[in-house]
């Protein structure tokens, strides 16, 4: 761990900062999340560091709680997307034959509609609750992880060491978990960072459209929606989440880049 490049350190630092902020939101936030404490759109002051929002709630507190919601939803959705996609993807590659065909064609089908459009179609008939959001986001996104996991696994599957294991008489579980998974892990882990960012952007977009996290719960996309009317009057409250999302996304990107570089150059050896 001694020679981490500076960019990765910066990325790690900010990523950790955001996650800690999310964990300890109630301790950090100066006011309650839905507590009306001042006038509408007050400018920043010693009392309200970032000012107040469209109905007079403290923006800093809203941002901290909002980050908690956004990061929580994105994290759980990423985990769902990842476990489903990776397990089914590798399984399809190892099983081959018609199982692979059916799964792959199904995923092609789902992916032939833009994810956002699909999500909108589904959300038009399902109740918009946090668990439902997470499920829809996670499952829709798992198609992408499926593709990657399957492609990686197919590449590994044709290698002679897998054939050697088959000819030795090893069971499918051994081949998946001992031969393929350890070699597929590094590209998958790097992808995980990108999926997480995508989830943050995705949930923010949905909330902004009014189809994600419902008020009075706060999340970054929702804060934009609530305060967007201020823009025309020159009140930049709606731009705060832009800053938060961008820094989080860039930090995670930096970390993911480093993980990817590290693991590809490591390929086989011990770094």
């Amino acid at each position: 761990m001694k020679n981490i490049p500076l960019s990765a350190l910066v990325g790690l630092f900010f990523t950790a900062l955001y996650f800690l902020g999310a964990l300890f939101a109630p301790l950090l936030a100066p006011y309650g999340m839905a507590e009306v404490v001042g006038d509408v759109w007050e400018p920043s002051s010693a009392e309200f560091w970032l000012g107040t929002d469209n109905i007079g709630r403290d923006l800093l507190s809203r941002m901290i709680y909002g980050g908690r919601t956004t990061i929580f939803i994105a994290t759980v959705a990423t985990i769902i997307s990842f476990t489903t996609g990776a397990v089914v993807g590798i399984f399809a590659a190892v099983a081959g034959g018609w199982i692979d065909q059916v799964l792959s064609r199904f995923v092609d089908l789902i992916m032939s509609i833009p994810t956002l459009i699909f999500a909108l179609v589904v959300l038009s008939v399902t109740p918009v609750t946090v668990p439902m959001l997470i499920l829809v986001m996670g499952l829709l996104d798992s198609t992408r992880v499926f593709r990657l996991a399957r492609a990686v696994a197919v590449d590994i599957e044709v290698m002679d060491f897998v054939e050697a294991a088959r000819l030795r008489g090893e069971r499918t579980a051994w081949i998946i978990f001992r031969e393929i998974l350890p070699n597929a892990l590094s590209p998958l882990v790097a992808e995980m960072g990108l999926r997480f960012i995508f989830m943050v952007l995705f949930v923010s977009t949905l909330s902004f459209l009014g189809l994600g996290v419902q008020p009075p719960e706060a999340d970054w996309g929702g804060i934009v929606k609530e305060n967007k009317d201020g823009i025309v009057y020159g009140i930049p409250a709606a731009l705060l989440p832009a800053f938060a999302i961008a820094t989080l996304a860039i930090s995670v990107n930096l970390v993911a880049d480093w993980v990817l570089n590290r693991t590809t150059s490591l390929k086989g050896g011990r770094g």
Partner: protein
Amino acid sequence: MTDTAVLKVRDLKIGATIYPPGEKPHEIEIVHGISFDLEPGKVLGLIGESGAGKSTIGLASMAYGRGGVEITGGEVWVNGRDILQSRHSDIRKLRGGEVTYVSQSAAASFNPARTIMEQVVEAAVEQGKFSRRDAEGRARELFAKLGLPDPDNIGARYPHQVSGGQLQRCMTALALCPEPDLVVFDEPTTALDVTTQIDVLMAIKEAIRDTGVAALYITHDLAVVAQVSDDIMVLRHGDTVEYGPVDQIINTPQEEYTQALVSVRSIDHEEKAPTEEPVLSVRNITARYKGTKFDVLHNVNVDLYPGQTLAVVGESGSGKSTLARVITGLLPPREGEIHFAGRTLTPDFNARSREDLRELQMIYQMADVAMNPRQTVGTIIGRPLEFYFGLRGAKKRQRIIELLDEIELGESFMDRYPAELSGGQKQRVCIARALAAKPKMIICDEVTSALDPLVADGILKLLLNLQKIEDVAYLFITHDLATVRAIADNIAVMYKGKVQRYGQKSQVLSPPFDDYTDLLLSSVPEMKIGWLEEVIAHRKMESAGN
């Protein structure tokens, strides 16, 4: 030192940036001060193992560095100018005008989107040496000289429309078209089958002679370079080992390394007579790949006796690797049976007993991909011990160490990962993994073809030695007849999915031959000056006689 030299290289040093795992990228020197002269019309052979720096030196004569390669010192004089000091525009005139290049893989070196003719004449026209019309005329002459079919029209075709051997000749035409003073041939025949190689080699040699061009001929095969060169420079790890006239290098090599290269493939192996019961009998096997409409194996019959070696030899597409897949059960045959150790094997390996799987092991051509890069040598060798014999803990460790000793690697290798091993060491570990199962028979699929000659030699000696100790039978698949001579007891020559010739080594390798075996045997380059002319003359005589 003369002033007539086309190419004069002095103390050439070349560096490259490497990216070792877990470390910062840094520059290392890969060629440490090489000097030589090349007179007009002469051919200098550069020979060495992979990583000896021979291709890099060839490209340096065009002031070109591939990838992160950089020329760090010395002088390269072409026609009296130091090109390392030249301006970029002058270097562009040099490339494709005075010096041209023939690469190993013509298939990749031709642009798939443009016709052969466009690409062959491009440099000559661009450099202002010929008008487009004259250049095309010259290209057609060269096509004819190089023995290409339909030389007047072949230029209109696209690269994917002609065969690999033909494309390699087109690449030679491309290099000769602008009437250069020097051609760099970089392993031009390595990717070809032996029977194709010999014709391309002759075509190149005649073209060099007729046009009076000087050439650098780069290869790892000393027997090949002996046929075309006037001088030979032997390279190793970026240093000159020996440099002299071809006659001296081949017949009286001074350095130990050169002597080893010359005498490589001279393993003495007394063939054993067939014993009573074969361990493997392949009976009337006919097979085809799923979804295809033609058989790749037709009625194949061969036997392998305990403790002996059956070499299956043939060129690419002969079906020799398919035979291995049928025997291992990866490709169930359409017809025929396989008897192994007194039992009849189930066609699909999934249905075979653990005992059948254990007794029939396999070693692969590419040792890199035959081992899981995330497992240590100890895990790789230990798994069969655990899986077949239930060995664990200290007992397993003990046995792994024994096996490591047998393959002449020490206990210290146990915790290493495949990426930390050399090519030869990797193949040794694969051998140990096969032996760990205590098999009756091992299929060796081109196990030495990816290795440098001296390393390959070591592997063959090890395999022969292990055969004596363990009494294991080998089914040895190869395209290399020298390897066959070195280790076989029985030989099966395969051609287009059929066994063309089969029997004991001494019988198979002595006349009278069938046409294909004759062609195959006579195409293997021999470490003898003038061999190429002899063979071609012999063939011409025979075809005239018929």
